[in-house]
Structure formats: structure tokens, C-alpha cells
């Protein structure tokens, strides 16, 4: 027994000294050089600003858009008013439909791409992204041309006699959703495509071999296995959708006020920064909760920039 206590003591004394050297001085210096810039940048331009944002959301609005540095919860209470509540619910409704349509449209595209040769699917990817690389905004404006009462679609339908008078296609929720789907579809297809492409065909074969109908195979095997890609697509659509005020400005014509528009307004016309900050905080929290669910379900944040 005494021998054992002796080794115990020895272990303890070495334990105390164990952090003496982990790596050489030069290795440390090189780490500092590599990690320094991103660390400083993240602290200065992500963490600190978010801190300011939270801070501002508890401040009081003074006259003429000034900020009074006095703690208040009014900005958050303000949000429960029906007028703002309807903005939030409208945003969520639009984001929901946009996401649903985008995923439903995008998934079969992913399936089609997964069945192609690598080279062909690469070309399709480029074709998908090319219009948006340049200027989504200008191209989005084409919808104004196409959807207005004397626009391409209406005049076509009038000419073939399907309509007697033009339809109001523009400046409503429908137009906003179309615009949003247009903007986010290409981004949503890619993660779904990559998860479908990674799917082991042997699993599908196995399911078929075990006598499952194609529908069963799809819902019980393919869909669960490609769900990370679908989740990534949902996140990639839903998040920007809520903050993207330009689409509703352009195609909603002020009919459709979204959270993004509301926040933007607090920093321009209304000049109510604390309220704008509080809205941003709430928006961020909602999204972060969603993202947390996404990662809890096994999603990786790295898939969001695939």
C-alpha cells in the first residue's frame, strides 16, 4: 500500500506542473498571427455591435429621434401592439409560404441534378446562380414589368381571351412571395442537391428489395436521409426572407409591410432607433432559436455556405 500512495503523490505533483509547456513560443506566435485578425474582427464588428444593439433596445426614444440613455422596457412592450403584431405575423406568413414553395420546387430539381453527371450538374449550378450573381434587384424589377396590369402576363392572357379585364397581380402578397421564391430558390436547391447526391443508392435499392413501394421508399428512406439538406434549405430561405425588405417594397407596393421594412423605417422615416434595435433583437432571437433547432436536429452550420 505505501507504494501506491507514493505513486499517487508523484502523479499529483506532475499534474500540478503539467501546463508548463503545451507548445513552443514560435508555434504560439504563428497561431496568434493566424487567429488574431479574425478574432479581432469578430469582436469589433460582430460581438461588440450586437452588444450595442441589445443595449440600444433598452434605451428611451427622445424628441426628434434623439436617444435618451435611460433604461426602459417600452420598446419591447410596444411590439405587442396589434399593428406591429400583424407585421410580424405577415412576415412569418410570407416567409412560411416562400419557404414551403421554395423547398417543394427545389427538391425535385435537386433530384434531377443528382441523377446527372458531375460535370452537367456543375453547369446547372452555374446556370442557377448566374442571374443572381449579377444583380438580383434589377432582374427582380422585371417582375414589375411582367406582372403589372398592362404587363406581359396580363396582355398575353387578354390577347388569348382568357381574361376580359386585367388581373391585379402586382402589389400584393402573391407578388412578394413570387419575388422571394425567385431570389432564394437557387440558394435552396444546392444543399438539397448535395444531400441527395450523397445518398447511398444501395439504401434505396435495399428498400425496394425489401418490397417497399416507391412512395414508401421515398417517405421512409430518402426523405429522412436527405433531411439535413432540406433543413439547410429551409434555414437559407426563411432567415433572409424575414429581413429582405426590398422585395416587398418593390413588388408589395407598401401593401405588405414586413419586419424588415419596419426595422428599416425606424432608422429612416420614423427615427426611432431604440425601437428598431428592439425589433432587430427579437428578430435575431426568433431566428437563433430556429437555428438552434436546426443544429439540434443534426444540421451543420457549415452546410449553409456549401
Amino acid at each position, binding site marked *: 500500500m505505501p507504494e501506491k500512495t507514493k505513486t499517487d503523490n508523484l502523479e499529483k505533483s*506532475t*499534474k500540478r506542473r503539467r501546463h508548463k*509547456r503545451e507548445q*513552443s513560443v514560435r508555434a504560439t506566435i504563428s497561431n496568434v498571427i493566424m487567429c488574431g485578425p479574425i478574432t479581432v474582427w469578430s469582436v469589433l464588428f460582430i460581438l461588440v455591435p450586437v452588444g450595442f444593439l441589445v443595449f440600444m433596445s433598452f434605451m428611451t426614444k427622445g424628441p426628434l429621434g434623439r436617444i435618451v440613455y435611460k433604461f426602459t422596457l417600452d420598446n419591447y412592450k410596444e411590439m405587442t401592439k396589434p399593428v406591429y403584431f400583424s407585421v410580424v405575423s405577415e412576415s412569418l406568413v410570407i416567409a412560411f409560404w416562400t419557404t414551403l414553395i421554395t423547398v417543394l420546387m427545389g427538391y425535385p430539381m435537386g433530384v434531377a441534378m443528382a441523377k446527372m453527371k458531375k460535370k452537367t450538374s456543375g453547369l446547372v449550378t452555374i446556370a442557377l446562380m448566374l442571374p443572381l450573381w449579377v444583380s438580383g434587384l434589377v432582374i427582380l424589377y422585371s417582375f414589375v414589368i411582367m406582372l403589372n396590369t398592362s404587363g406581359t402576363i396580363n396582355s398575353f392572357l387578354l390577347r388569348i381571351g382568357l381574361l376580359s379585364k386585367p388581373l391585379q397581380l402586382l402589389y400584393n402578397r402573391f407578388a412578394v412571395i413570387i419575388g422571394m421564391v425567385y431570389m432564394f430558390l437557387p440558394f435552396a436547391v444546392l444543399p438539397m442537391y448535395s444531400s441527395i447526391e450523397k445518398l447511398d443508392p444501395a439504401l434505396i435499392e435495399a428498400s425496394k428489395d425489401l418490397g417497399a413501394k416507391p412512395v414508401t421508399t421515398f417517405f421512409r428512406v430518402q426523405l429522412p436521409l436527405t433531411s439535413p439538406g432540406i433543413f439547410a434549405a429551409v434555414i437559407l430561405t426563411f432567415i433572409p426572407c424575414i429581413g429582405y425588405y426590398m422585395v416587398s417594397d418593390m413588388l408589395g407596393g407598401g401593401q405588405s409591410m414586413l419586419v424588415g421594412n419596419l426595422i428599416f423605417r425606424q432608422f429612416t422615416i420614423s427615427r426611432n432607433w431604440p425601437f428598431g434595435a428592439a425589433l432587430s433583437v427579437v428578430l435575431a432571437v426568433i431566428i437563433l432559436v430556429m437555428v438552434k433547432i436546426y443544429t439540434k436536429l443534426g444540421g451543420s452550420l457549415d452546410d449553409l455556405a456549401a
Partner: protein
Amino acid sequence: MALPIVQMVNVEKWYGNNHVVKNCNLSIEAGEFLTLLGPSGCGKTTTLRMISGFELPSSGVVKFMNENVEKKEPYERDVNTVFQNYALFPNMNVAQNIGYGLKVKKVPKEEIARRVDDMLKLVQLEGFEKRRINQMSGGQKQRVAIARALINQPKVLLLDEPLGALDMKLRKQMQIELKRLQRKLGITFVYVTHDQEEALTMSDRIAVMSEGVIDQIGTPKEIYLHPKTRFVAGFIGESNLYDGIVREIEGDEMVIGTEVGVFPALKKQLTGGTVKVNDPVTVCIRPEKMKAGITEPEGFYFHAVMKEKIFVGNLTKMIAVMNNGNEIRINRIDEKDLPEPGQEFFLSWDTEDAVVIPSRSPIALDTADSIEAAAAAEQPEET
């Protein structure tokens, strides 16, 4: 004695709360082929990495030619490494890979080309210089990795399980080739493996590690014939191991009580320290030293029943059961006069062949009980 080329003195390594290398003392002589042998996770690779400089010891000193190399970066140390998965640069061809070490040192182009040629000849890869890495087979990659590490003419070459990814046949061939290279170049090789056969084939000396501790350092013969710990005895080669205690010591002889029974042993066969009466020990008897006789032998013996007999080509492996249920492994080259399965026979061995290893820790209680029980039940029969 010449100065050791690499020395590790009281080296400890912690990863967080994990004590991976414990009080390591190791002297590597110039020109020897030393193998660090042990199961995965025993700290052998960490030990190697402390020599190459990728890890720093938490405490203790690593010396090259008696000089402390704590402050020397991997790229300043006079050692080169052959990595487990080759670690060839995928963006370079074979010649560029091999010449990398010289290019870094800004050696003139013509000299690099000449020395790369020499290396290609050495590892028998002439004509492959323009090949890309992903076009090479495992064995060829291995040769490139060796050539790349040797071109810097290191004093010590470290090899981290370099043959792990190769198939059996290629492995045997490379073992012989590595040994040939080492003899030809006279460079010190420090070789890490978990394969005891590989270690026994190539090494001048073997350091057996388990759980961060070097259990024993010695020539393959010493390690095999005189294992100093129960772990070494069990890890290298096959063995029959019996825990027991020393019952009597008289002159050159001892009497050991074990779970299988009480039998005599020789003091000169005691490894790894001294013992007193009642000290715990482990007795190791190699299967090829076990005797299975149909006729009653001289000296002591036990009764056993043959259970299985397996012919594996160069020898016959047998498993027998003693009266108290203990299994015994017996290996024999000739098949003459062997009991058949189901047959009772006389089990014995020469006292010369039983190695007695003092136990490091006190014997477990239940083992002690079974020793008592065995001693009461079966006394060896003397003629």
C-alpha cells in the same frame, strides 16, 4: 560506451487530464533499430512525436547528442519522419515530393535532381519521378515517403506505423527492405508499431509500452525469453500466465503457489526485481515449452485433458484443460506421441522454462482465494 544519439529523461506528457506518457527514460544508441511496441493508445506515437518535435513534453527533457532540444522546432531537428499514412504532398509529383526537403534549404536545382535520382534508385522507383501521387500504389507511396525522409540525410529516422496500410505480403517484403536500408545507411531507426511480429523481425532493441509506461527495453530475445512484466509476457508471443505467490525460497530454488497448483521454479529465472516469501508473482510458460506426455514424466506434473488440436502448417497448436478448469496452450512442431482430444495426459515443463515475474501491484483477493483452493485440492505428484 558512445554517447546516445537521442535521450529522453523523466519525460511526462499530459493532454488535459490525460496522462499519456509516464516518466519515460529512453536512450537511443547511434545506428540501432529501436522499436516502440505497444497496443494502440499506449503513448508510443506521442513518444515519437516528442522526439520529432511535434509535441513538447509536459516535463522532462529530450536530448539529441546530449543537447537539450526543447527550443528546437521540428524543422530545426536533425530527424525525419515517415508518417503512418505517408503524408505525401498531393500537389507535387514523386520527384518534387522527394526533393522537397532540399528545395526548402535552397539547394541548387542540379544537385536536387541528382540526389532525387539517387534516392529513387535507393528505393527502387527509377522512372517514376513524373508520376502524380494519386497514381501510385500503397507500396510505392511508402517508398516515396521513405525516400523523401532520407534525402535530408537525417541522423535519426522516425517511422510511425509505416506499414500499417499495406497488405500482409507487401508488409513482409517492406520489413526486409527497411532492415536492408537501415543496415546500408547506418542511420538510427526509431520505429513505432503495435505488431509484435514486425518488432521481433526488424529490431535491434524493443521498448514495450503499455498505458504510457515503458515496461521493458531489450533485445527481441531478452524481451521474449525474460519478460519483466505480466503485460510484456502476454503481449509478445503466446504465453501461459499464472498469478501466484512465492511460498518458499531455498537456495537457487523457489516454490510458487498458483491458481493451477504448486510447483518449483528457479531463482535465476526471476525477472524484473527480487522477491520475498509471500510476494505476488506471475509465472510465464511459453506454449512451445509445455510438455504433453502420454507416459508419466520425471519430476512434477499435472493431470490435464486434451481439448482441441489444430494443425496450422508449421506447428500443432493445442488447448488442454486441467482438472481445475484452467486452459493451457501447448505448441509443438512434431506430432509424435501427442495425446488425442479427450485423452488425459501428463502436463509438465522444465523448471528452466518457467519465468517468474514479480507483480507490481498486490495480488487480487479472489485470485489469492483460488490459489489457496488450488493448493488444497491438488498437490503436484512427485515420483
